[in-house]
């Protein structure tokens, strides 16, 4: 009888621990922002990683990327920067207007895309636009560019956030085939500024 009680107790402990571990682990992996937890803070605005798709990634890094942004390219081909805050350190919010001002990036191709931080997808909009790239964005003679992020239409280079207020979003800068000079400076390359214009 004593052994039976001990065995039942052990089974209950294992079952409870299994359920608790599974629930807490899944919750921590699928948290909408957890994908960025191990990214490196470059300058207070932009986060960086070179572990996407990498064999060198830890189990947690691999799982978070698989759940939050699967099938990214390894750093051999592309590098990724993410901004979840503006230059003042305030989380990006849907009701605010931002001006993203970027330098000429010495790379074959780059694109800047906006994602809803909760759904982790693009924000549906009438323009059907969630990104600009180095070919489509208007550039000044020195290669600099400006992209306006706002809930309402802007005169030029607009990425719509969403009309519903208080929705956090993120900006992802993808840099494909960076030049050797750019690679040598990673992650400390000149990155776009993210300025809150109004709110």
């Amino acid at each position, binding site marked *: 009888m004593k052994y039976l009680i001990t065995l039942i107790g052990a089974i209950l402990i*294992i079952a409870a621990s299994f359920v608790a571990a*599974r629930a807490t682990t899944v919750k921590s992996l699928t948290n909408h922002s957890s994908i960025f937890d191990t990214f490196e803070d470059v300058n207070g605005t932009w986060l960086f990683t070179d572990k996407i798709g990498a064999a060198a990634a830890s189990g947690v890094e691999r*799982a978070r*990327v698989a759940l939050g942004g699967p*099938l990214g390219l390894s750093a051999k081909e592309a590098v990724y920067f993410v901004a979840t805050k503006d230059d003042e350190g305030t989380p990006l919010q849907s009701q605010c207007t931002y001006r993203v001002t970027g330098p000429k990036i010495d790379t074959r*191709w780059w694109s800047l895309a906006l994602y809803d931080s909760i759904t982790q997808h693009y924000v549906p909009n009438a323009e*059907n636009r969630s990104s600009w790239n180095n070919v489509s964005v208007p550039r000044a003679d020195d290669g600099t560019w400006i992209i306006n992020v706002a809930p309402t239409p802007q005169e030029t280079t607009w990425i719509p956030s969403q009309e519903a207020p208080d929705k956090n979003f993120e900006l992802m800068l993808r840099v494909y085939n960076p030049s050797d000079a750019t690679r040598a400076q990673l992650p400390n390359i000149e990155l776009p500024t993210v300025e809150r214009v109004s709110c």
Partner: protein
Amino acid sequence: MLSRILFYSLAAGALAAVTFFVTRSMVIQKAPVKVMSTIEARIVAGAGSWNACFHNQVYGPRRNAARRANPDSIISSMAYDLSDGPVRISGETWPRYWSLSFYQQNSDNFFVVNDLELDGPIFNYLLATDGQDTSELGGTRIVSPTVKGIMLVRRFAADASDMPGIIANQEAMTCGPA
């Protein structure tokens, strides 16, 4: 009596801790594999079978895309299964940007090549497992660490005007048993 209570308490705590950490480790290891299996099922449903090309032919963001998908990247995909032998992927690159990448079942991107790294616009790859002989088949051999996985071809579009050319390029591409 006290020592017995202490013993059972310590044993229960140790059992709970071991179960917790083993379960956590299993969930972390299995999560990428589960995601890959889900994506493979979607590709197979779109392509009609394993080892067949499936082309996105829509420019811009899409509701059914993967989380944080790049809207400028027009994707051709293939869920591969090398159980019955190697698979051939061939076609022509896309000049604005083209890359061919393979993902093993734990989601690692174990191979990627872009158009500038090739000698010309024509590509002809053979995907095989380590033990499969491809010497008589021709094509550039790529070894997949796992029997199943995913292939992606990315072609970049500056805007919607690039789509007719991209669609023609996609339709000239072949995926299938070697």
